[in-house]
């Protein structure tokens, strides 16, 4: 332990050097999302700039700080000045920023969004006072976007591995006691108290026990786990060690999606560093605790997020769930007692062990302690990764943090494909495990998808069902056959061929699937349909009775039209149309041949974005009788 303490002292010194930097530092957010927005190009460009101008400056890659709608983000810290953050940077603005900051020493105010000091700096507000950040409480995400995840020293300087050191000085039972007092519940979705699972595993005799980190984030529309691993890798690994110590496991496994190559690479780097720092293998930090971590790449199956299916997958079998009991805590991987915890649960543990249960109890509310991360996506102004206290209302999340919707709000889907679609009347619902369940939805792993009036709820329900139907492992007949049947009915409805009786059939099928399935996938698969049937029944009826899709999404119920008065005859759409459905000479209103139109949207996009076009192409719902 003394060896690590020395490392911490030197790490802190190194960090102080960064804080009181003598040369400029350029931070670039380069998690997967930042990269998709062009961060790698910006890094290359910055390095080129530094070289060409012959200045000494450092470039540090950091993770994701959360507000993805501002990506790519570039921060610059000049000596003696607070770190200034620039948003939506492209190559051109980057050069302006670098010129202004590195050569002239003044912030490029026009593109600056916030500074990391405590007060205004040259008129730039503090970053954490921004409307998206202010209502958040960042515990799990505290380091994300601030430190270089590939540098263990920076994590150590942020009190990293302090939680583990505290834990190792307690008995495993006491560690479980702290977690019990903290009241943290599984962040993977079901919300089972973490300490209960642990106690069962601890008390089960067995020479070999396993601790698995579930990073099989299969929910479409959720990326909290990816972001956390990419941005603060060591926090998750530290959490694994604390959990491993508490339950008596000597082997840890990270089960992670193969679709997250950057996260996997960072985990590998982090594990290498742990080895160098004596945080891996035998007698960790001079204690009797042994722990090693291996990485298992998932091979693409949503159902493997379920505990027993995940275990089957690690064992090299088809990822199919089995009935419980025995629970994995008693008989799991290779028949040994196994605990599977979600990435976020593990990422929270170091904070609890470092600051104590009482501190953690300050957040959230009775029965729902602490914070939860959510990925806020869909038709919302400020998309991104957020962390709020449990008990925050949906309204606060959508309107205060997310900045609201551009068009009128229609619905919010919580919990991904297993969750429910909630309507406007639920906006004041507190986000906690019980409240969401009472509304027919679930907390899930934390994907929040916002829909506005341009989203068709029937289409969304069909989308989710189609997803779960394809991902159903096929073991339980209600899930395998039932979901398929539901998809077929929904397809008929979206084609305008539904009959009123379909709605009852959907409900009956949904109830049966929920009751007759073994695992969480089947038990929750009908939720999107059941909740939309409950809260948006009218839209189903409109599709069935009038052949109307008010959101103009369902292809068979819509048509494209050219508004003659608006059309400037610019011919852009004529060129864009792949089937030659639009015709007309230049400068004259164009014609759209409905029999040839395949509703591919190309002309609509061109007409909206080309400067010379007149917004003349519209999509209208056709209706059965029109």
């Amino acid at each position: 332990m003394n060896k690590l303490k020395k490392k911490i002292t030197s790490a802190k010194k190194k960090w102080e050097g960064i804080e009181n930097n003598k040369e400029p530092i350029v931070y670039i957010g380069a998690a997967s999302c930042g990269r998709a927005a062009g961060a790698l190009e910006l890094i290359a460009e910055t390095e080129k700039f530094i070289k060409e101008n012959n200045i000494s400056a450092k470039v540090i890659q950091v993770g994701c700080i959360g507000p993805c709608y501002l990506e790519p983000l570039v921060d610059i810290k000049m000596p003696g000045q607070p770190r200034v953050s620039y948003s939506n940077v492209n190559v051109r603005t980057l050069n302006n920023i670098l010129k202004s900051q590195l050569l002239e020493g003044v912030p490029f105010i026009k593109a600056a969004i916030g500074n990391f000091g405590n007060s205004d700096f040259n008129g730039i507000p503090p970053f954490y006072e921004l409307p998206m950040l202010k209502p958040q409480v960042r515990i799990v995400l505290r380091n994300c976007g601030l430190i270089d995840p590939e540098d263990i020293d920076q994590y150590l300087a942020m009190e990293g591995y302090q939680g583990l050191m505290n834990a190792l000085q307690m008995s495993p039972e006491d560690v479980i006691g702290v977690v019990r007092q903290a009241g943290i519940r599984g962040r993977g979705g079901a919300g089972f108290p973490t300490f209960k699972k642990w106690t069962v595993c601890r008390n089960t005799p067995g020479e070999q026990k396993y601790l698995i980190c579930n990073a099989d984030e299969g929910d479409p529309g959720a990326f909290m786990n990816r972001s956390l691993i990419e941005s603060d890798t060591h926090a998750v690994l530290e959490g694994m060690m604390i959990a491993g110590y508490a339950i008596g496991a000597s082997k840890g496994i990270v089960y992670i999606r193969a679709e997250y190559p950057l996260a996997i690479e960072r985990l590998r780097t982090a594990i290498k560093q742990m080895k160098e720092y004596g945080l891996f293998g035998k007698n960790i930090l001079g204690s009797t605790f042994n722990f090693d971590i291996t990485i298992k790449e998932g091979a693409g199956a949503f159902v493997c997020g379920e505990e027993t299916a995940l275990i089957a997958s690690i064992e090299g079998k088809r990822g199919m769930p089995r009935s419980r009991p025995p629970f994995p805590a008693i008989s799991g991987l290779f028949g040994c007692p196994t605990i599977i915890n979600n990435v976020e649960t593990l990422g929270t543990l170091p904070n609890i062990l470092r600051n104590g249960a009482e501190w953690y109890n300050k957040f959230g509310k009775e029965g729902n302690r602490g914070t939860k991360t959510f990925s806020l996506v869909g038709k919302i102004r400020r998309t991104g990764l957020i962390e709020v206290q449990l008990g925050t209302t949906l309204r606060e999340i959508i309107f205060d943090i997310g900045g609201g919707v551009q068009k009128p709000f229609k619905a919010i889907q919580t919990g991904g494909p297993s969750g429910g679609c909630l309507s406007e009347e639920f906006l004041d619902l507190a986000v906690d495990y019980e409240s969401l369940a009472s509304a027919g939805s679930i907390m899930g792993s934390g994907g929040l998808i916002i829909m506005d009036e341009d989203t068709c709820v029937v289409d969304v329900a069909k989308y989710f069902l189609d997803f779960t139907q394809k991902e159903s492992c096929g073991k339980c007949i209600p899930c395998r056959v039932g979901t398929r049947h539901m998809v077929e009915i929904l397809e008929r409805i979206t084609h305008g061929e539904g009959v009123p009786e379909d709605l009852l059939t959907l409900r009956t099928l949904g109830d049966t699937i929920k009751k007759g399935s073994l695992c969480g996938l089947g038990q929750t698969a009908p939720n999107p349909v059941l909740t939309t049937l409950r809260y948006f029944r009218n839209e189903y009826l409109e599709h069935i009775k009038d052949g109307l899709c008010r959101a103009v999404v369902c292809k068979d119920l819509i048509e494209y039209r050219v508004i003659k008065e608006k059309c400037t005859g610019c011919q852009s759409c004529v060129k864009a149309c792949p089937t030659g459905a639009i015709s007309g000479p230049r400068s004259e209103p164009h014609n759209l041949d409905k029999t040839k139109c395949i509703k591919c949207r190309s002309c609509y996009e061109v007409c909206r974005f080309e400067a010379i076009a007149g917004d003349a192409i519209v999509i209208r719902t056709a209706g059965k009788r029109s």
Partner: protein
Amino acid sequence: MPEVIEVIFEKYQRKPDQLIPILQNVQREFGYITPESVKHISRYLRISENQIFGVSSFYAQFRFTAPGRHSVKACLGTACHVRGGATLLEMLERELGISCGETTPDRRFDLERVACLGCCALSPVVQIDADIYSRMTVNKLSELLKQYE
């Protein structure tokens, strides 16, 4: 080919739980799971070819036909769906003349749909080889395809 497979085997223990990592490695090496490699794996791990096909067909990652020079993946995650991911996929199918899981006759592209690439805030996204393109539109995508030979 047998030599390449032998090299892969050296990295893994002769245990059934190594099946998926071996399959992943084989796919990285050859681009897909070749029938021949299944025979070799079967002999190495002492499990039947049936079982190997059973496991590999269960997971979406494994493919059994040769991929194209460039892999195009259309993301159909929830966020992408809400923002028009399906329209992009239809456009890709039309433009390339193939459906999901197939390869163009000239081997230039193969097309797949993925459940989520985890870049939901930048939706809709399309992945071509290792690059993820954000905030795609039908017309931008059509231009983009021309850059790949």
